C-alpha cells in the first residue's frame, strides 16, 4: 500500500504531510509528558524488529500464498498509540529512503494511511475498547479471544481506511482516469482479504506475547481499566477527526462540477445566472494588465492545473517539435554520461 511520489499532486502531498506532522507533534508532546527515557531504545528495537518481521512470509493454509504482519496494530498494542505511531514513522521513512518503498514526498500520505489508522484508530477505537470490555466473559481464555478479535477487526478496519485513503489521495491528485467508484471497488475487497490474513498473523504474535509476558501488552492488565471512563472523550474526538477527513475528502471529490460560486454564476440550471444577467464567463471579472500578468504567472506555476491538454489548439508542429526536443534532451543526457565516463576514466588513469 506504499504510495509512490508520482501518484500524488504536490498540494495533496503537502496536506498529508501537515496532517501526519500534526499527529506526530501530538505524539511527541505526549511522550515528553510521560517522561520515560527508557522507552526510546524499546521503540527503536521494536521498530527494527517489525521492519524485519514484515519481510517474513507466513503460509496461508490451503491457498499456497503467503501473508505478512500488520505493523501498526502490533506496535500500538505493544508500545501504545503514540510510541507505536512514531515507530511506524521511522519504519516507513527507512523503507522509503533506503528501499524506495514509497516516495519522499508521499511519506506524509503513507504515514497517514498506514501508521495513523493502524496506531490511533486501531488502538483507541478497536484495541482498547475491546480489551477493556467484558466481551466473551471473564478469565484468560476470554482475554485470548478478545486479543484475536481486536487484532483481526483492527487490521481489517485500519487497512480498509488506509486503502480508501489511497484511492482518495490518488483521485484528488487527478493522476488516474479510473473512475472513483471503480477504483474503490478494486482496492477495498483486496485489502479486506489482506486485512483478515494480517489480523490473524498479528493476533498469533500478540497471543504468544500474552502467554509469555502479558505485562508487555497495552490494556490487558485489570488495574489499567480504571481510566476506561475517560476513553469515551478520546473516541469521540478521534471519530470526529476521521469523519472530518473522510467526509471533507469525499465532498471535495464529489464536486467534479465547478465550485458553488462558479456554478451559480456560469452553469446554473438551463440558463445560468450569468446568462440571465448578461455575463460572459470569458469576459467576466476585472480586466487589467496586472490581472493578465498574474493570470499568466498562475498558469505557469499552477500546482493543480485543470488537467486540460496543454496548448490544446496549437498546431501539430508544436507537438512534433516537443518530441524532437525530448529526443534532443535524451541526447544531451547521453552526452553528459559519456563525458562523465571519460573524465572518470581519465581520473583513474592518473
Amino acid at each position, binding site marked *: 500500500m506504499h504510495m*509512490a*511520489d*508520482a*501518484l500524488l*499532486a*504536490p498540494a495533496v502531498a503537502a496536506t498529508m504531510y501537515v496532517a501526519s506532522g500534526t499527529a*506526530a507533534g501530538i505524539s511527541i508532546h505526549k511522550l515528553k509528558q510521560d517522561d520515560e*527515557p*527508557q522507552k*526510546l*531504545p524499546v521503540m*527503536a*528495537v521494536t521498530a*527494527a524488529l517489525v*521492519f*524485519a*518481521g514484515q*519481510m*517474513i*512470509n*507466513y503460509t496461508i*493454509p490451503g491457498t499456497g500464498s*503467503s501473508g505478512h504482519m500488520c505493523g501498526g496494530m502490533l506496535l500500538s498494542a505493544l508500545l501504545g498509540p503514540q510510541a507505536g505511531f*512514531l515507530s511506524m*514513522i*521511522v519504519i516507513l*521513512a*527507512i523503507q522509503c*529512503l533506503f*528501499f*524506495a*518503498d514509497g516516495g519522499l*514526498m508521499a511519506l506524509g500520505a503513507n504515514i497517514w494511511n498506514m501508521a495513523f489508522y493502524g496506531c490511533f484508530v486501531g488502538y483507541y477505537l478497536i484495541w482498547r475498547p475491546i480489551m477493556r470490555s467484558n466481551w466473551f466473559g471473564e478469565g484468560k481464555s476470554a482475554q485470548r479471544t478478545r486479543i484475536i478479535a481486536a487484532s483481526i477487526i483492527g487490521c481489517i478496519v485500519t487497512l480498509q481506511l488506509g486503502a480508501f485513503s489511497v484511492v482518495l489521495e490518488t483521485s484528488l491528485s487527478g493522476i488516474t*482516469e*479510473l473512475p472513483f467508484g471503480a477504483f474503490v471497488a478494486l482496492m477495498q475487497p483486496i485489502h479486506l482479504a489482506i486485512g483478515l490474513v494480517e489480523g490473524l498473523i498479528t493476533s*498469533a*504474535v500478540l497471543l*504468544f*506475547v500474552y502467554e*509469555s509476558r502479558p505485562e*508487555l501488552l497495552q490494556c490487558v492488565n485489570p488495574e489499567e481499566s480504571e481510566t476506561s471512563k475517560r476513553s469515551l472523550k478520546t473516541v469521540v474526538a478521534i471519530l470526529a477527526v476521521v469523519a472530518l477527513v473522510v467526509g471533507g475528502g469525499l465532498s471535495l471529490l464529489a464536486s467534479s462540477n465547478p465550485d458553488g460560486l462558479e456554478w451559480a454564476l456560469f452553469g446554473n440550471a438551463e440558463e445560468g445566472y450569468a446568462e440571465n444577467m448578461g455575463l460572459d464567463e470569458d469576459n467576466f471579472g476585472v480586466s487589467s494588465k496586472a490581472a493578465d500578468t498574474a493570470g499568466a504567472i498562475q498558469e*505557469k*506555476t499552477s500546482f493543480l492545473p485543470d*488537467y486540460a*491538454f*496543454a496548448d490544446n489548439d496549437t498546431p501539430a508542429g*508544436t*507537438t*512534433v*517539435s*516537443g518530441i*524532437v*526536443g*525530448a*529526443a534532443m*534532451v*535524451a541526447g544531451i*543526457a547521453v552526452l*553528459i554520461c559519456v563525458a*562523465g565516463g571519460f573524465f572518470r576514466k581519465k581520473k583513474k588513469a592518473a
Partner: protein
Amino acid sequence: MNKMQKAIRELAEMDEMAVRSSPVHALHPLSKLIATVIYILVTLSFDKYDLSGLVPMVLWPVLLFQLSGIEVRSCFYKLRIVLPLVMAVGLFNPFFDKTVVLQLGSLPVTGGVISMLTLMLKGVFCLMASFLLMATTPIDNLCAALRMLHVPKLLVTLLLLTYRYVGVMTEELAVMTDAYHLRAPGQKGIHISAWGSFLGQLLLRSMDRAQELYSSMLLRGYHQHFHYADIPPFRTRDALYMAGCALFFLLLRCVRIAQILGGTLVR
C-alpha cells in the same frame, strides 16, 4: 539468499555508496535535501499531459549520477518496488482517456497513453532524486540536517537508533528463517503452527535487549541528548548549489526547453 539477506545487502550497498568521495558527496546534506525536495515538487507539478515539458527534468539526476560516480544500475534495481503500483494505476488511463491527441504516422496516440507515460516518468525521476540523496549522504549526516530543520530530537534519534538496529534484527531474522527452512524443506513460508512463536520469541528477546541497550547508553553518559554527526558548516558553495538547483528547476518548469530545442530542427 532470502529476502532478509537481500535487504541487508541493499542496506550495506547504500552505506558504502554514501561514504564515497565526489563533489556531490562533499556538499552539505541540508543543501542536498532541500534541492531534492524542490526537484520532486517541481517534477510532480507538471501537468499529466505535459510529457515534453517533463522530459528535460531528467538532466539533473543524470548530471548528479555522473558527478557522484554512483551506478545507475543500483537505482534501477529499486524500480521493481515503485513501478508496479505506478503502472497499475497508470495502465487504466489508455482505457478511459481515448482522445487522440497526436498522430504518429498512422499510429494514433491518445491522451491516456501520454498521461500514463508522464506518470511513469514522474515515478522514475522522483525515485532517482531520492536515491541520489541517500546514495551521496550518510544517514548520520542526513539526521544532522533534519535537526537543522528543527525536526524533533526524539524523532531523529529514533530514526538513527532504529536504523542501527534494522541491520541487527534483519540479520537475526535471516538466520532464523534459514534455520527454519532447513528444518522444513519444501515449505514456502512459516507454517500456521509457528506463526506466533517464530516472531514472538525474537520479540521478547528484543524487549530485553532494548533494556540492556538503555543501560549501556546510561553507562556511556546518555542524558536524553544524542550526539549527531559533526557535519561541516553550511558554506557559500552549498547555498550556491541550492539556489542554482532551484533556479534550474524553475527554468525547466517555466520554459518549454524540449519544444524550443525541437523548434530549432523542425519548422
